[in-house]
């Protein structure tokens, strides 16, 4: 069992004004207003939040700033923001809006030295490197950008080590293969990265039920788990009723009231109680 306290992090993918969720980072469905979900998670004991502007890299825009500002006023836990941050000026803008950390992928792949520069300027602990891993037919894991669509040719483990050496404070590791499926985290991938770097690794992508969290912590050696669907679908009903969500994006799912069958929704209290029962240390409110 890990000695450290494990963090449970809610990941909110944001498109325009809305919280969305896809499968394999694609096929986005609108779920509601991110601030509402964030506030609920904060009040029920989430340890951190990640806001990911998932279309920013593709369209070169960053619509997150207003959402960050509104969130930071009400939520007094760490907030990481990523998506489309290109340079030190972008990082500064996001931090000045109330984010505590930034997550970089494309910018760091294009110019790894940005990790060093950003760590020196804003502190290592502020810089989270996001790695989107896709398993290849030959068994290798390669790093991708732009929600798994952009090939980099980088080996995930080499890239993770290099990012840590350059001064990254944490690694947000996403298995694109598992993402949104509810079939569980990629344990091998997580374990190998966690054992390759001295810095904390956040496992992301695939959580569908409580057992998956336990696996990735005990076997995968993750220092933190990031969840989306399990939490979002748990809060879904409350937010759907009377929610004035914008019509931008695919809201058909929201209107239909359907469920996604592979995911067993859970609230934070249930998750934390489960982890403690498994002898996994974590913060409880």
């Amino acid at each position, binding site marked *: 069992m890990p000695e450290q306290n494990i963090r449970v992090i809610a990941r909110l993918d944001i498109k325009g004004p809305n919280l969305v969720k896809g499968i394999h980072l694609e096929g986005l469905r609108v779920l509601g207003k991110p601030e509402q979900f964030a506030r609920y998670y904060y009040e029920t004991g989430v340890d951190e939040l990640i806001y990911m502007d998932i279309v920013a890299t593709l369209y070169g825009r960053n619509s997150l700033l207003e959402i960050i500002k509104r969130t930071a006023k009400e939520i007094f836990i760490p907030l990481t923001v990523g998506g489309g941050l290109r340079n030190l000026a972008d990082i500064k803008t996001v*931090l000045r809006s109330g984010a505590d950390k930034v997550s970089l992928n494309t910018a760091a792949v294009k110019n790894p030295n940005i990790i060093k520069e950003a760590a020196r300027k804003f502190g290592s602990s502020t810089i989270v490197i996001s790695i989107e891993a896709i398993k290849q037919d030959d068994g290798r894991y390669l790093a991708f950008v732009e929600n798994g669509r952009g090939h980099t040719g980088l080996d995930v483990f080499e890239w993770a080590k290099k990012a840590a050496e350059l001064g990254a404070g944490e690694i947000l590791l996403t298995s694109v293969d598992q993402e949104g499926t509810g079939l569980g985290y990629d344990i091998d991938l997580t374990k190998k990265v966690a054992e390759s770097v001295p810095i904390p690794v956040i496992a992301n992508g695939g959580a569908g039920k409580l057992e998956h969290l336990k696996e990735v912590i005990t076997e995968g050696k993750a220092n933190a788990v990031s969840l989306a669907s399990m939490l979002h679908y748990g809060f879904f009903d409350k937010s759907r009723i009377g929610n004035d969500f914008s019509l931008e994006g695919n809201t058909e799912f929201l209107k239909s009231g359907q469920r996604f069958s592979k995911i067993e929704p859970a609230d934070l209290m249930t998750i934390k109680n489960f982890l403690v029962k498994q002898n996994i240390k974590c913060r409880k409110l």
Partner: protein
Amino acid sequence: MAYSRRQKIAIVDYGMGNLFSVKLACERVGLEAFIVNKGSDFLKASALILPGVGAFGEAMDTLNKLNLIEPIRNFIDSGKPFLGICLGMQLLMSESEEFGLHKGLDIIKGRVIRFPLQDFEGGSKVPQVGWNKIFKPDYKPKDEWENSLLKGIKEREDYIYFVHSFYTIPASKEIILSLTSYAGVNYCSSLQIRNIFACQFHPERSGPTGLQIYENLAILLKTHQRVE
């Protein structure tokens, strides 16, 4: 009447870390907070907060360049409440071993050192990122927290948020207010001496538990004002 005057908290901006969460936490408990980067602005403050995330040497250089070192000393000498958070705590010490040896503000005698390196497999990761608990040193009075900004925090029970690779070793153990356990060491996670309170953790990122510390600051300032 002096009593109705709003308390103003000055937050030192020297380009390091998230000042805005500190400001928002102050505002949440009804304190007026403003971000300053000129020593002359400290004069109108009833309390000064030195926050900070980042590298020690770089931070000292910047404080020097912005001519903030003397104003910080003067503010502390004035007896008004002073808060050092995270790097802001470490900077108070005599020296740090972060990326070579660096001189600190030397307001508190002591050193800043790194967590011991661990094996990656099963060992504690450095930096420590996450929630941890605090407890009183066994040689200190049991009720000491009652007269400090930690009033109301439950030792070994409440969780507080930490992000750091380095920690302080004050020369005098007497000033240690709380200890925290990580990577096999019990280290100083907060200290108090005269009008200085400093903590390694981030109260502004520690949920309701952390906001209690800001609430305590607001109460302290009210008392302070009555004495004036």
